[in-house]
């Protein structure tokens, strides 16, 4: 299976995406990461930022999975009227 991408237009548009633009986007991404909020150093390489991003997304996924398990257990164990009260309470907070 050969990838018949329209290489010509892609490379021309890729060349328009300068290194500077990529670094700019990467630094914006870095600002979102939790660690970077602590240390704002400009010397973090783009590869490191991408790596940190991957790790962060994986940890977020894991957290969501844990929360899902917890929620499913809680849902199974509480009865509906008290669950409704809890729901209203959580939305009010």
């Amino acid at each position, binding site marked *: 299976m050969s990838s018949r991408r329209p290489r010509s237009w892609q490379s021309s548009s*890729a060349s328009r995406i300068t290194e500077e633009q990529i670094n700019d986007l990467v630094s914006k991404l870095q600002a979102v990461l939790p660690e970077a909020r602590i240390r704002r150093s400009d010397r973090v390489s783009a590869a490191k930022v991408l790596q940190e991003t991957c790790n962060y997304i994986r940890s977020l996924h894991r957290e969501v999975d844990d929360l899902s398990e917890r929620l499913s257990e809680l849902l199974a164990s509480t009865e509906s009227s008290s669950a409704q009260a809890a729901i209203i309470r959580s939305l009010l907070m």
Partner: protein
Amino acid sequence: MVRSGPCDGEGTADGCRWIEIWVFVDRFDRFGVAGDWNLAGYLKGFWWEGSSLRLGMTISNGDGDSAAKDGGRERKRKRRAEPSLVKWKTEGEQKTYSSKLIEALRRVRGSSAAGAASATTDHSRGRAVREAADRALAAAARGRTRWSRAILCGRTLKRRVLPRAGRPKPVGRARAAERSKPPALKTKARVLGRLVPGCRKLPLPSLLEEVSDYIAALEMQVRAMSAIAEALSAVGGAPSAALAEGPM
């Protein structure tokens, strides 16, 4: 997609907001939730009052603007602009998401109770919850990002998270000439693209946009689910409610 609900005729001051509210309810129905008009009414009251959070159907304050609604209206004007990350941090957006999620969770619980309770393990229930949460999150994104559309279309990407497999790099005939990105960066970008649903073949700039939005959305998801879990476990601690053994 837009339709009027049973309480039509109230709050005619600002038609836009009514429309937006019923769009959300309609989306619940799309996911198979039987229309619960009480809940819809509650949601309506909730939305309309914004941060003052009064229950019920009373719509007195035409002023209650939640950041999510304003953001939604703004975003309608500039369609091609990048999705704003700020919306994921607003309280209004989180509450929207919580409402959607709770409705989906009720449905999950209903279906798992109806089926054989012994057959559904904790893990499969957890997975059902996770999928409902992700679908609700994608719906909250209102289809403006690639990852949200990918989640809503199908969940095939999430199940198979390949560790390192994948096609080997294509023959670099013309690619060797184009060295705007070092290969290490490309590899990592590819891994990142696999983590975010629907973003495998994206060029780097779009990928980074999607990733930042996805991260912000995930953070909100974690916050919302933690809040719900806290509230539910607080109720579970109450002595009168906790020990109900019989099926509902």
